């Protein structure tokens, strides 16, 4: 017989972003207390109200317990064993008004990741904000953005330059009392991006933030706030990586999107945090709260995510559809291998009349990983003529992994139309045989099937990111044959 060994021949998928950059760091001591929060706030020259808000969040957080309802299994997190602030020294000086030079090592790190952080190397059509551990190190394409009145900068800078705008919207979608991880983030968030698109402006470039965890034992707590004013449009992309380490690192981010009347926000994530090794040692714990608020009529928010990394993923990008006729979309591919665990999905809250939502979730599990879709579709009693369409498909690659679908549907208005479909399939021997019989090797056959499975989601990504997502998936599944 031909050599068709269907047992998984585990090759550690090489995580090519696993390097560490040696750079002089300015960091806080490990542990969390009110002094640390004052330290972070002080580093950023924040307004007083910001510090007060952080303190309120911290005090609320102290009274709460970590949620454990997700289908995730991980040891207790010691929040006192984490460093809450780390920044390349040269960068933290920038905020003190000194040279502002980008540390050459940091620049090299981003070059290695293929992320152009300086104007002269900038990608055409994509403006990049790069976050290295706790601080934003570069923002490109400033000039063209300024011409349109678009604000795209780090949230720290926004707090200094545009405090009123930040104050008006920060925490208005995800209040610090929202959940355990969101309140932790509210207390200690270090950096992230701020975007404001003025009324009627169509942002001429893709905006992109690249998050890089480098320092050891450091948590990354970024906060992103995007406001699309009336009739505006913006497409935003986020990417993330971290070095390979055998200890776990915490990432607890909050992203808030606000779309006013007739505005549209497209938000895409390619998440490729280090996921730990084949035995499940190390990797990022990714506890993220992402929520969009369609505040005005006919607003539209669309989330697209490719979740391919992190040891633990706990993430539910959601839409609050308040404005009449507003639209929420969630397109997700979550791929888990080795011992990765993902519990991810979305919430679509229909408050306005004639609101629409679409959920397309594709879960792929390989090896011994666990992959859960968890989603809520809620139609409020007063919301008339709302529609939701959900499709949640799971694909199993191999026999030791698991996939779960946990859909909650609460339709409280009789005019609602809610459709939900879910399938689970194993990548079938017949499919692979059929493709191979046409001369295509087994590895490519698996990639064809898996990419076909994810097609609906990849279609939502801008071209170059769809290519990146396809490659990422191929890399993850290399050697995991079922």
């Amino acid at each position, binding site marked *: 017989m*031909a050599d068709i060994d269907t047992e998984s021949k585990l090759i550690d998928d090489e995580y090519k972003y696993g390097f560490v950059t040696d750079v002089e760091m300015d960091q806080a001591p490990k542990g969390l207390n009110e002094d640390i929060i004052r330290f972070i706030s002080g580093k950023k020259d924040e307004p007083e109200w910001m510090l007060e808000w952080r303190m309120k969040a911290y005090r609320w957080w102290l009274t709460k317990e970590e949620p454990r309802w997700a289908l995730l299994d991980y040891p207790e997190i010691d929040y006192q064993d984490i460093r809450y602030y780390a920044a390349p020294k040269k960068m933290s000086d920038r905020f003190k008004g000194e040279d502002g030079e980008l540390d050459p090592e940091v620049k090299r790190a981003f070059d290695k990741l293929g992320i152009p952080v300086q104007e002269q190397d900038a990608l055409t059509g994509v403006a990049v904000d790069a976050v290295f551990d706790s601080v934003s190190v570069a923002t490109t394409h400033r000039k063209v953005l300024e011409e349109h009145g678009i604000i795209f900068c780090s949230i720290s800078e926004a707090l200094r330059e545009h405090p009123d705008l930040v104050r008006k919207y920060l925490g208005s979608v995800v209040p610090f009392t929202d959940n355990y991880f969101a309140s932790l983030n509210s207390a200690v968030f270090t950096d992230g991006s701020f975007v404001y698109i003025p009324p009627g402006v169509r942002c001429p470039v893709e905006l992109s933030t690249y998050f890089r965890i480098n320092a050891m034992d450091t948590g990354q707590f970024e906060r992103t706030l995007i406001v699309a004013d009336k009739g505006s449009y913006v497409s935003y992309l986020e990417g993330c990586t971290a070095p390979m380490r055998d200890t776990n690192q915490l990432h607890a981010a909050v992203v808030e999107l606000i779309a006013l009347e007739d505005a549209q926000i497209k938000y895409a994530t390619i998440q490729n945090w280090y996921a730990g090794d084949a035995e499940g040692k190390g990797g990022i714990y990714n506890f993220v709260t992402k929520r969009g608020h369609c505040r005005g009529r006919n607003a539209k928010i669309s989330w697209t995510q490719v979740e391919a990394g992190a040891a633990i993923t706990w993430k539910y990008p959601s839409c609050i559809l308040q404005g009449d006729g507003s639209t929420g979309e969630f397109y997700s591919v979550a791929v888990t291998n080795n011992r990765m665990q993902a519990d991810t999905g979305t919430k679509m809250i229909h408050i306005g009349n004639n609101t629409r939502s679409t959920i397309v979730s594709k879960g792929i599990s390989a090896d011994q990983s666990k992959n859960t879709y968890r989603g809520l579709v809620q139609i409020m009693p007063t919301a008339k003529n709302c529609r939701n369409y959900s499709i949640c498909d799971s694909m199993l690659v191999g026999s030791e992994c698991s996939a779960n679908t946990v859909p909650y549907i609460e339709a409280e208005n009789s005019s609602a139309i809610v459709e939900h479909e879910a399938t689970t399939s194993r990548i079938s021997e017949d499919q692979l045989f*059929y493709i*191979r*019989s046409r*001369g295509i090797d087994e590895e490519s056959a698996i990639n064809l099937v898996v990419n076909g499975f994810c097609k609906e989601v990849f279609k939502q990504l801008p071209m170059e990111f769809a290519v990146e997502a396809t490659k990422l998936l191929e890399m993850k599944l290399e050697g995991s044959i079922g």
Partner: protein
Amino acid sequence: MFQERRDEMSGNTFFEVNNLKANVEGTAILKGLNLTVGRGEVHALMGPNGSGKSTLSNVAMGHPGYEVTGGGLRLDGEELLELAPEERARAGLFLAFQYPVEIPGVTVANFLKTAHDATAGESKLSTTEFLKVMRKNMELLEIDSSFVNRYLNSGFSGGEKKRMEILQMLMLKPKMVIMDETDSGLDIDALKVVSRGVNAMKSDDSGLLIITHYERILTYIKPTHLHILIDGQIVVSGGPNLVKDLEEHGYDWVREHHANESLAAV
């Protein structure tokens, strides 16, 4: 009377199945099958349900669910049994599936191009040339041009799937084709179209093995040889006239005839 004919005598051994034995889930299905197809020949293989027809096509292509317990399989001098399915395809073997598999999210054009690139070797076409050839073949098979962007076999009717098999065959230009009940479930118009495609591919350099239940397809694609498979072995081989005998007398008669022959042989 059947016309006995030994293919080895022709000296043209292009595709050779030699005493092939195979099990499915521990049960012996092929019990020493011998069959030789020469260049330019069209062989038909008929036999009742459960005789091992589909097992032969799956084993020939290398389906991992079948266990080969003995014998050999050669194409143009190359031993196939040690090769993976994709390597057999690259060696020039093509199987038109009885039940083509749906591949959601993979467009017909993408699939055909990927398969072409994997098998064509030095005769690889540029994308433009490839598309030109593909359109021409689609016209021949009366496949609507919208199909290039549809997902392979997804939601296709039975007839559309079979036509898609023939399109793949035309695009890959194999040396040896096995058609596994391609005619099953086709109406007369579709059968004509499929036959047109197969006849367009036939050449003096390639071989064709048509596995079928029905004589009907053999009026459109004329076989040079016919074999009858019963219980994992070819019991009778003959020329095209064997079809008429079979039509008149049925498999029981073949079984009986074969039994007498066997007795005579002892």
